[in-house]
């Protein structure tokens, strides 16, 4: 009984924090229609700022709270709304995802520059060492603070939304922004207030949560993500249900921890909120197909013909052959890795560029592919590619399944949950990568030709990319591709033609993740081994953002994005002062360019054409540079 009570108190206290962070999320989502993936990162930034002021600069706690939650938080929220989110009204889910994910990575990047991630920090509890005896157990003052803050915030939100003018306008905007504007409220101002409020709530949750865990940038960002599950319970609309969801999540988590044997617990614990999110997604009722078109301002680039893609593919392979001869082994590895990343990104061209669906777990599928290659058929067999494709394809279907009947945002969340869950349950499991945490992945021989050497394997990677690019374009030109694009443009219209959208989405997801799996086999083969930290969810975000910036609906975009990603370690070595450069680069890039789904490579094509015309001839001959040669394939 005593332990039951104790775990309940822990659960309720943590649940209150989940409810706080989730309510901030719901407030911004309902008023602006944008699901803020950076919510946790904003909370993290504010918690660090608070730590800086109170612990480092020795400000009194109350002053720190007032400045961080009353000034910096609202200003940050309002600024984000003003500069970024305002321009996203009516954008597609994938575009808003790219921007908010860009913001998430940017926040992490900024934080690592300001606060060296290597240095351990801790945040003191509120009223540290004070506790009170309730029945048979002790409750710390910090836990009491968490609970009372949640209650106060709930009361405040209720009064704010129902008793104030701006609050009423906020609720009205949820129902119909256009109508509310006609009635004299400014949806823009309302959205700004809600973002300011949301940021402060995120900060409050971060500050209360930080003492319970260590003050770690990534950890704190992701912990707040756990609140997503609570927000789902309220279906991103209802605040009371969101609070219920938060408490349920906290209690379920605490009691599971209290009752599971410790050997199981160690594996399951980090994945608990994710499992909760999964269950909630499964229970959520199916969303109605919505009619009403999203305004797209960017016309998709023309799809290359078979002839064009064959030529471009051949040119790419020739260029790769030259590179294989002239580059040093280190540079060859860098470029090879870039092409492997490009292959992974190609799977996103199919899924996101053509199909409009978003996966935040692509690196997870890559990891499963590498696992398939390394574990089966001796670790270096051609058949390993099949194992990689099959396992990753299956995983993709599994990741999408809970949310496949729901709209795009939920699907993205489901993959996020899957990535986090797999990271905790699969990759960190000793039975998967062995006790050293590293799994050897070999290189195959195909039809008697050995690809064990670096140059040979590089060529295999490049030829595979060329074939995959040609294949993806052929798919796009064929019936399946048309169907997928049609589904992106109007699911409702597809349904009225008799298309089973759920099935088509599942097929697309399976295909894309199988492709990422094959890329994973190459990823492992190129490096010789893979480690348990290679497939973190955040890497999937970097991947998604970089291909979005380069052009997520073209093969050339995937190639450019991949090469950029491959180059990051090299640039990082040159700029040691900026840790997590890839986060910052991808984040800032996405924020700046993420609204054009065609990416910057779509700008290169026409400009290249101009240059060519200026020189009066079509540039011929083998170009030594992969980059330039591949662009015409789709631009």
């Amino acid at each position, binding site marked *: 009984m005593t332990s039951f009570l104790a775990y309940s108190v822990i659960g309720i206290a943590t649940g209150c924090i989940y409810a706080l962070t989730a309510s901030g999320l719901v407030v911004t989502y309902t008023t602006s229609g944008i699901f803020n993936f950076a919510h946790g990162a904003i909370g993290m930034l504010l918690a660090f700022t608070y730590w800086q002021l109170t612990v480092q600069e020795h400000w009194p706690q109350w002053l720190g709270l007032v400045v961080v939650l009353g000034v910096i938080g609202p200003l940050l929220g309002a600024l984000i709304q003003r500069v970024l989110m305002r321009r996203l009204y009516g954008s597609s889910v994938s575009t808003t995802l790219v921007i908010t994910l860009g913001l998430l990575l940017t926040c992490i990047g900024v934080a690592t520059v300001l606060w060296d991630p290597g240095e351990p920090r801790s945040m003191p509890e509120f009223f540290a060492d004070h506790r009170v005896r309730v029945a048979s157990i002790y409750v710390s003052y910090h836990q009491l603070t968490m609970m009372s803050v949640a209650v106060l915030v709930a009361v405040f939100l209720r009064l704010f939304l129902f008793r104030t003018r701006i609050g009423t306008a906020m609720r009205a905007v949820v129902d119909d922004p256009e109508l509310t504007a006609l009635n004299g409220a400014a949806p823009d101002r309302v959205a700004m207030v809600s973002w300011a409020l949301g940021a402060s709530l995120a900060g409050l949750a971060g500050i209360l949560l930080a003492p319970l865990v260590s003050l770690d940038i990534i950890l704190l960002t992701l912990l707040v993500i756990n609140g997503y599950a609570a927000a789902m319970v309220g279906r991103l609309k209802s605040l009371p249900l969101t609070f219920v969801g938060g408490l349920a999540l906290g209690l379920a988590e605490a009691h599971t921890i209290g009752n599971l044997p410790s050997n199981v617990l160690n594996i399951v614990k980090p994945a608990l909120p994710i499992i909760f999110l999964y269950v909630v997604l499964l229970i959520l009722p199916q969303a109605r*197909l919505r009619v*009403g078109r999203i305004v797209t301002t960017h016309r998709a680039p023309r799809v290359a013909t078979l002839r064009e893609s064959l030529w471009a593919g051949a040119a790419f392979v020739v260029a790769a052959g030259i590179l294989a001869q002239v580059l040093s082994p280190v540079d060859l590895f860098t470029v090879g890795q870039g092409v492997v990343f490009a292959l992974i990104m190609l799977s996103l061209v199919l899924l996101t560029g053509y199909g409009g669906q978003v996966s935040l777990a692509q690196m997870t599928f890559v990891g499963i592919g590498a696992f398939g290659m390394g574990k089966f058929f001796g670790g270096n067999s051609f058949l390993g590619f099949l194992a990689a494709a099959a396992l990753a394809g299956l995983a993709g279907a599994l990741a999408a399944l809970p949310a496949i009947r729901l709209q795009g945002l939920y699907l993205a969340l489901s993959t996020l949950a899957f990535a986090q869950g797999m990271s905790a349950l699969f990759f960190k499991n000793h039975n998967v990568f062995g006790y050293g945490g590293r799994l050897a992945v070999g290189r195959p021989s195909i039809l008697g030709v050995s690809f064990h050497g670096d140059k040979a394997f590089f060529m295999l990677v490049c030829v595979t990319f060329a074939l995959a690019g040609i294949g993806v374009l052929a798919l796009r030109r064929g*019936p399946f591709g048309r169907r997928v*694009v*049609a589904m992106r443009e109007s699911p*409702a219209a597809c349904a009225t*033609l008799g298309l089973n*959208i759920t099935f088509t989405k599942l097929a697309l997801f399976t295909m894309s993740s199988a492709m990422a799996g094959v890329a994973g086999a190459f990823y492992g083969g190129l490096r010789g081994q893979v480690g348990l930290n290679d497939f973190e969810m955040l890497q999937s975000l970097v991947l998604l953002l970089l291909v979005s910036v380069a052009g997520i609906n073209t093969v050339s975009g995937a190639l450019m994005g991949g090469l950029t990603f491959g180059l990051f370690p090299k640039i990082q070595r040159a700029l040691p002062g900026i840790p997590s450069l890839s986060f910052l680069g991808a984040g800032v890039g996405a924020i700046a360019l993420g609204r054009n789904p065609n990416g910057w490579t779509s700008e290169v094509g026409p400009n290249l054409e101009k240059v060519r015309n200026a020189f009066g001839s079509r540039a011929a001959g083998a170009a030594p540079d992969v980059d330039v040669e591949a662009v015409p394939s789709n631009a």
Partner: protein
Amino acid sequence: MLEVDQVDVRFGGLLALHDTTLSATAGRVTGLIGPNGAGKTTLFNVITGLQTPTRGKVAIDGRDVTKLKPHQRSRQRVGRTFQRLEVFGALTARENILVGAEIRNGWDSTSEDPRMVADEILERVGLRDVADRPVDAMPTGMARLVELGRALAIRPKLLLLDEPGSGLDPDETDVLGDLLLDLARDGMAILLVEHDVELVMRICEHLYVLDFGKLIADGTPAQVQADGAVQAAYLGLDVPV
């Protein structure tokens, strides 16, 4: 062909459709008119399964489809267009129709070549000359014809058209009217929502009038035109009913 039986749709406190009963018969164009917000598009959504009714039944070709999902209903050969365009903007007109024919090949036992179907329909709706233009570069009227063509690609027995004439000039409207009469003559049941009174009067054999979610009149165009309640609803006239 289509039977809508005592359908209610409630959005919160608003009764968008109230006790609506109507039918559409094969071989003729049935009109559905009413002021904006009367519930016409909601009714289309109920028939195609995009909106679940609070009460009532929908039957197509004698079969109760109320419990079927949207794509299952379409497979009963129900085609529709949308008031707010739902074209596949990134695809060309030909591809829009082609997708329809290809999707149909997935659920229908047919040996029709989708490309031939697309060519035939492009010709029939008069889009042959612009077939290879992307639809989001087209004017609204033309895009509506693309939607009509796409709906025809599944060879519907029942065709629901939501304001197909808006965005067309008078000549184009005449051509559209002839086409719809042609389609009806081939045995199709057409339910037409349209604001162009002239077009409605010319091609519809039977008319239903919706106002505030309620059917206020039905009959031949001439009967409806003479109806006092209809005049009141449309013109705001205070005519005793």
